[in-house]
Every structure is written in structure tokens, then in C-alpha cells.
């Protein structure tokens, strides 16, 4: 089969991935450095019979996306820090009502308007903890254009499989950088569509979760008339004040993700077997990390890399196992230190944790990393 090669920007690869996954609805509001995703889908979606709408703000965008999703559409939005903050209340709504959706955050320097065209990785914790209350969700972080394509497909698959919002955490470098990628045939890909009820409507309970703890929501209009509310609800979907039901729901929407961790986690380990120092890096920073690790090896230093692709849930077990073997884990991130706290928590004191942070609106270069490696290696 002839393969198609394309030179794409990260934002364009995200669009190609979304279309492959079957996106049929996009609601968004323009913001640098994510805008190309909206622009491209505005022209591509009508061709596939899908719908694009530029909403009046990002709150409206995520609301429209969730509304569309309830009808069965694979729905997404794309934004950057300021818009991502506006979406937070409804990300929580999506968690508690179990409405699948994909939210792309092409991160730029913040807070506030910050550096609209400058890369950053400043929303790593906002992605996990930005909305209020106990909740859980999934976030992926691509390191290349090809990975952006596949991660976007995976975001849709996970959203549909776990009935949860899934966040794609890109950064400005990944969003705007161009690389050649191979576009596969759709038939080669695994595409997951959400479950639909099979019982007669009178027996249907939308929030009677399956054995994985995942709700089965019928598409609106298909004859299963049920209630969706952000209030605490029981398996019927209607509000309840019962403390037992309350706790059951809150725990279920958290543990359905926690319990699937082994399946969800995706990370890349290179040269970790004999390593004394591990560089922990993600997103565009991971590219520099790989290069520096290679150089360090050439200079006789035993350096390996750990690159998480799933950020949330966090791969704490894998990191703990590494910590038991190495002297140092060096976290590199384009912020003043966010995932370093997670790494410290995972390491449980078994290794030294060092931080290389940069929050100048510039990417972390291999040179930056090498300098720090030399500094902390012994």
C-alpha cells in the first residue's frame, strides 16, 4: 500500500489526527499558538459533513463541544493558557457527567497574556488540577509532529473509551514546528467509538457503570431519554443528597482512570539500564534531552532518558523503579518547576532530584541540558 508523506506543522498534524479519529464537531475561539487548528478545521470539517463553530469565548466553546458530544459527535476544541483557564469549570462538568471530549492546549508563556508566541510548559498542573473538586482525567504530551498525529487519535480513543475529557498538552514549539510524517491508511488504525446501550429504554440507567466503572451514555435523540446534571447523581442520573451515593460517584469517576493506569501509561525509556543519571523531559524539551543524553554518553557519562507521553495519570511507579537504580533524576521543564513535584513524590527519596527550569520564553536547548548534566552528574 502506498504511504502518504506530508510535511506538517504540529497544529496541522493534530487536525489530520483528529479527522482520522472521526472528529465531527469543533467549537473554539482563536488564540495563538493554537489558531491553525481552528482555521484548518473550519475548512476541512464541512468536507466530511462535520460542523465547525467559532464561539463567542472559550467557555462557550467547551459548552458547545459537550453539547455536541452528547448527541454522539466526536467533539474537540483547541486553545492556549488564557482560554484553557476559562474552560476549567466545564472541564469539571465533563468529568462528573462523563461526557467525552478532546481539549488541545498549545501552551504559551503565562500567566495572563504572557508571551503569546513563546513556548512554555506552564499548564502541566492546571491540566490536572485546574477545575474544582475531586476529579480525574487524562492528559497526553507529544514530543514530535508524528506523535502529535497519533496522540490526537489516541485522545479521541481514550475519551470515548473512558467517557472523560482528554487533554492534549502541546507547546508552542510542537505546535509550530514542521516535520515530515507518514500518514497511515485509516484501516491500519484502531479507532474506538463509545459504547451504546443495548437494553430496552425502560431498563436503561445511564450512570450504572460497566465493570470498569465507566458510564454508558446513549446519544441524545435515540430513544433513551435520560437526565444529565452536574449535581451529584446516582446511577439513574438524577440528583441525590445521599452521602453513600455521593461518595460512590466521586470515587468512581476518579478510580475509573486510576484503575486503568497500567493500560493508559505511555512513556519512553532510553539507556536507563546502566544509567547513573536520568533526564526526565517531555514535549519539545524531550528532543533536547535525547540529544544531550547521547552527547553525554559520548563523553563517557552514564546518562539515560525518561520521557512521559501520558502526563496524567502520572507514571509514578516507573519513576520509582528507576529511582531505586540511579543516583540522580534531572527534570527539565519550560516552567519554574511543575512536574518536578510529581517526580519528587514518585521518587520517595530513593534518588536525588535536580531541576533544570527555563521560563524565558525560549526552549530548552541541548546545550542548556549538557551544562546542567555536567554540573550534577557526580
Amino acid at each position, binding site marked *: 500500500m502506498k504511504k502518504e508523506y506530508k510535511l506538517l506543522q504540529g497544529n496541522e498534524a493534530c487536525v489530520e489526527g483528529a479527522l482520522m479519529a472521526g472528529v*465531527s*464537531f469543533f*467549537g473554539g475561539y482563536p488564540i495563538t499558538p493554537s489558531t491553525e487548528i481552528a482555521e484548518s478545521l473550519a475548512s476541512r470539517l*464541512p*468536507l466530511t*459533513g462535520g*460542523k465547525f*463553530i467559532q*464561539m*463567542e*469565548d472559550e*467557555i*462557550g*466553546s467547551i*459548552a*458547545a*463541544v*459537550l*453539547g*455536541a*458530544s*452528547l*448527541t*454522539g*459527535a466526536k*467533539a474537540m476544541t483547541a486553545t492556549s493558557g488564557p482560554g484553557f483557564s476559562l474552560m476549567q*469549570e*466545564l472541564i469539571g*462538568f465533563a468529568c462528573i457527567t462523563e461526557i467525552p471530549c478532546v481539549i488541545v492546549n498549545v501552551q504559551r508563556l503565562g500567566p495572563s497574556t504572557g508571551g503569546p508566541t513563546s513556548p512554555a510548559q506552564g499548564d502541566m498542573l492546571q491540566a490536572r488540577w485546574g477545575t474544582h473538586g475531586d476529579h480525574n482525567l487524562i492528559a497526553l504530551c507529544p514530543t514530535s509532529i508524528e506523535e502529535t498525529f497519533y496522540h490526537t487519535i489516541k485522545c479521541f480513543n481514550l475519551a470515548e473509551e473512558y467517557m472523560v475529557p482528554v487533554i492534549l498538552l502541546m507547546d508552542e514549539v510542537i505546535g509550530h514546528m514542521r516535520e515530515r510524517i507518514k500518514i497511515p491508511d485509516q484501516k491500519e488504525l484502531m479507532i474506538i467509538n463509545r459504547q451504546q446501550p443495548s437494553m430496552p429504554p425502560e431498563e436503561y440507567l445511564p450512570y450504572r457503570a460497566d465493570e470498569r466503572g465507566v458510564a454508558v451514555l446513549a446519544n*441524545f*435523540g*435515540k*430513544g433513551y*431519554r*435520560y*437526565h*444529565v*446534571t*452536574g*449535581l451529584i447523581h446516582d446511577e439513574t442520573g*438524577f*440528583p441525590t443528597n445521599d452521602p453513600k451515593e455521593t461518595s460512590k460517584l466521586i470515587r468512581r469517576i476518579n478510580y475509573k482512570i486510576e484503575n486503568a493506569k497500567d493500560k493508559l501509561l505511555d512513556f519512553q525509556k532510553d539507556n536507563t539500564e546502566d544509567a547513573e543519571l536520568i533526564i526526565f523531559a517531555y514535549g519539545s524539551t524531550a528532543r533536547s534531552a535525547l540529544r544531550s543524553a547521547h552527547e553525554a554518553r559520548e563523553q563517557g557519562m552514564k546518562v539515560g532518558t525518561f520521557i512521559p507521553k501520558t502526563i496524567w495519570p502520572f507514571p509514578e511507579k516507573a519513576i520509582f523503579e528507576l529511582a531505586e537504580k540511579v543516583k540522580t533524576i534531572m527534570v527539565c521543564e519550560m516552567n519554574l518547576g511543575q512536574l518536578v513535584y510529581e517526580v519528587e513524590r514518585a521518587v520517595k527519596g530513593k534518588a536525588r532530584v535536580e531541576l533544570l527550569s527555563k521560563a524565558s520564553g525560549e526552549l530548552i536547548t541541548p546545550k542548556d541540558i549538557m551544562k546542567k548534566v555536567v554540573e550534577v552528574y557526580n
Partner: protein
Amino acid sequence: MAIKEKSGIKKYLRLNKFPHIWCGGCGNGIVLRGILQGIDDLGLEQNKIVMISGIGCSSRMPGYVDFNTLHTAHGRAIAFATGVKLAKPDLHVIIITGDGDCAAIGGNHLIHAARRNIDLTVVILNNSIYGMTSGQYSPLTPYGSFATTAPYGNIEQSFDLCELVSSAGATYIARSTTYHAMQIPKLIAAGIENSGFSFIEIILHCHTYYGRKNKIGGPVEMMEWQKSHAVPISKKGSNIDMTGKFYIGELKKTRSPEYCKTYDELISATQRRKES
């Protein structure tokens, strides 16, 4: 409200969810009845109706009706509804919202949905106060009225939402009151039938908070106020003194392209271009 066994609207109620959470004497039930009657008069298929609300006393209505129902976040019902309708235009989408939900926190979504003339039917239950949170002033609380957050009288001006959505582009606009309950079904049915953005404001009493704070009395006195302050739109032009009064009935009926239909035409056009 006692519903006769034979009444057509009983089938639309989730009777096992009663009693409702509203105060005894609340006007929300009267509006609910009017809406269901309007739906029944049109004979719409129950499975094709989606009722969406924000947060507030009025916004609890979808929980009591046997449609596809969606109780969203404060102010966001119209934005959710936009997604539902655009994704599945064959669904009838009805929004239930309060004066705070619609005019304050959700004001921007209201303006832009009206501007798009998307085929949604918005029913706003205007009780001049924030009911759910116990009596704070809303953008529609009259100047000088009392509320828990306006203990010295409201110093903000209220405004006419019907005029707002009219200039934004709504194609069907009507107003009524709970006193004029018999008029509500007709307005609801016309709003649903309009292919475009329909806005129906129902003025109703909240005796528990607005009535008590302003020493107006109970539901009866408040409905008498509605009766004496509502002027049928047919009387417009006669020399009635409109000070403090408002028009009821169908305030606007016009036509302009509907958003989802236009989008579907755009899909056909782009696909034709692709083929040729």
C-alpha cells in the same frame, strides 16, 4: 397543580421525581405547564426534544420532564444548546433559564445565539431576583427594589431583554406572565415552530424572596401586579401610559436565514465543489 388523568401533558412528566423542589406557590410550575401544553399542541416526538437549562430554581425544570434533559452550569445552557443543535439539527432544543442565568452570567451566549439566529427556543423565567441563592439582585431587578445584596435599594438600572435579543437578531420574541397562563402554550408553540432563534420571557413571581424583601405580599398579590402592569401588544399605539408597564404577546415575528440550515447548505456546496 392537579393534572387530569386525560390531560395530554401528563406523559411528559417524570412523575416519580415529584414533589418538586420549588416553594409552595412558586410560578415555575405554571410555566412548566404552559411549556408542556405548547409541546403537546405541536405533537412533537418526545425522543426528539432536548430540554437544557443552566443553574437556578427555574433551571431545575428539566429534571421533571421526560425528554432528553441536560442541566448544565450557571449561564451556559445556550452554549451547550448551540452544540446540541448544530451537531443534530433534527432535535428540538428548548432552553430553560432564569434572569440571572440568562442576563448576567450567560448574557454573552444569549446575544450571540440570537445573532446567529440558530433554531433554539429560549424560555426565560424572569422573577426579578436570584431565587436559588436566596434573593440577591439580578440585572432585571428594578431600580430601587430591595434584595439581600441591595439592602438600601437597588442602584443599578435593569434592562429589557426582549429588546436586547431583538437587536441581536432573534426572529421570534414574545412575553407573558404567570397571570396570563392561558397565553403561554401558544407562545411556546410558536417559538418552537419558528425556524430560528426564539425568545420567550415569562414574568413570574418569587414571593419567597422578591415578594418578601419588597413587602409586596404573596403569590396572589404578585400576580395581581402582573395583571395590572401587563399591556397586550395589540394596544401599542393607543395612548396608554406605559410607565412601569410592559407589553405582552408576540413582540416580534420575522424571518432571516437560520444558522444550522445555512451550515448544511455550506456543507452541500463545499462537497459539490470537491466533486467537480
